């Protein structure tokens, strides 16, 4: 089944949330992906489907730098190629057996993926600042509703700067900037991924930001 995805960058989650040796599911605009990470390498975003018999790869196990499917133990290296089929231990898997992989970039501590086959849209470009994860929070509201609120400052201040790719800089005061990235998940459900610029009082500030996000969700879902 071929699905054609538009060429755009979608927030997947906080980079810090994806721990080494883990695989977990995410939904990007209704499309299921497996987000996994080996012991050292970058976060990988793949179609959540083993090419063999369709099992979700987010149920898989990470061994070394490979992701193994839970169903038959087929293991895949970071470029998507299958390297081992346990039912045929002596077989060198053909190059045609390949999981579907997507382009990934990190911006301000947030993972973004582009589901297009050949992405041309420029990814958001990082600056020199260091960013700390605050939290991810899901809202039972459509991306349009949440985007309108983010563009209006999301309760952090009177305005926000639209950085593209669903990213808003919602606070710019002296104690550090706050980045809010919106992820369209299932229809009517949106994730907000938030990081704050690392400054002297970062720890305390993050708790305040997290509290503000909870009240933002409550407010969004009440209307």
């Amino acid at each position, binding site marked *: 089944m071929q699905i054609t995805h538009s060429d755009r960058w979608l927030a997947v989650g906080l980079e810090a949330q994806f721990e080494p040796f883990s695989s977990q599911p995410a939904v990007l605009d209704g499309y299921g992906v497996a987000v996994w990470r080996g012991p050292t390498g970058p976060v990988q975003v793949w179609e959540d*489907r083993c090419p063999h018999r369709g099992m979700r790869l987010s149920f898989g196990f990470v061994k070394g730098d490979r992701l193994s499917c839970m*169903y038959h133990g087929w293991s895949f290296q970071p470029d998507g190629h299958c390297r081992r089929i346990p039912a045929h231990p002596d077989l060198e898997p053909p190059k045609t057996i390949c999981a579907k992989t997507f382009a990934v970039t990190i911006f301000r501590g947030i993972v973004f993926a582009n589901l297009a086959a050949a992405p041309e849209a420029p990814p958001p470009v990082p600056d020199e600042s260091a960013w700390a994860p605050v939290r991810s929070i899901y809202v039972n509201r459509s991306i349009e509703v949440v985007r309108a609120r983010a563009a209006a400052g999301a309760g952090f201040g009177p305005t926000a700067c639209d950085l593209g790719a669903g990213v808003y800089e919602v606070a710019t005061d002296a104690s550090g900037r706050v980045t809010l990235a919106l992820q369209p998940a299932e229809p009517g459900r949106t994730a907000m991924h938030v990081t704050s610029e690392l400054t002297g009082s970062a720890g305390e500030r993050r708790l305040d930001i997290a509290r503000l996000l909870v009240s933002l969700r409550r407010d969004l879902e009440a209307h």
Partner: protein
Amino acid sequence: MSVTVDQIALNQWIVCAWMGQVAPGARRDTVVLGQRIRLTCLVDGALACHELAADGSAGRQLPLIQRYEMVFTTLGAEPRPLPEIAEFTESDRKIVNCGSVGVNTSPYRIIENFLDMAHLCFVHTDVLGSLDNTEVYSYKTEHRTGLDEVWATDCAFFQPAASKAAAVSGGGQLTHYKYRVMSPFSVMLYKNVYDEPDRDDVICVFIQPLGETQCFAYMTMAIVDANSTVGELIDFQQTIFLQDRVILENQRPALLPLATSAEIPTRADLSSIAFRRWLKATGIRFGILRAEAA
């Protein structure tokens, strides 16, 4: 949910309860192929089955067959006959009714999983397979044209605890299997009895498709095992089946793709390949991924 118009699917005997599920004086409302039905058990134990209309009133009476510990009905005028399974009449066997388990997927994903040896070491680790012995040896498949069934023969797989009896003894064994797809909604296997290599235990799965991706899987067995209780045999099978359910409900798509490019098989999947080819030849559309069926 509307009733399927697929004539292949309609003309099957479909399990709708296990024997004993509906107590005398009670009834069971359920669904087959999108059609609501009501099973009624009279006080003398006799069963009757009717279609239920949208307003809940009883409509056309449906035929019933009670066999292999199961209750079958059909919505079709000319159903494919129930398969013959001789082992159920052998007097020294334990006939074990394992009841049913709900599984949200298409019936064919359940059948393919049952036919599949390669998953045993990963999904039923240290019971039906071992991570040290993952190889699937070559086996044969055939379409038995007289029965119009798909068989897989000469199957062998190393198992640490192939059955309740084998689990008690320990040590592991090379188990010999034969598999048999008896209809689009039923499958069985023969596996050699733990301490009587010339005889086979029989395990059957009959599937009740409520809709295209909602099923009840019923399991019934004819086992040669003088020592285990029926309760122990049921526990063993239910544990195995619940391990499979995690897989079955997380395959994408749930509908079975028949296009050869949709999913990549290897030699170990010969039985799945033969099953898909046979399904395609029947022309069945119910539970099949649309894009491919077009």
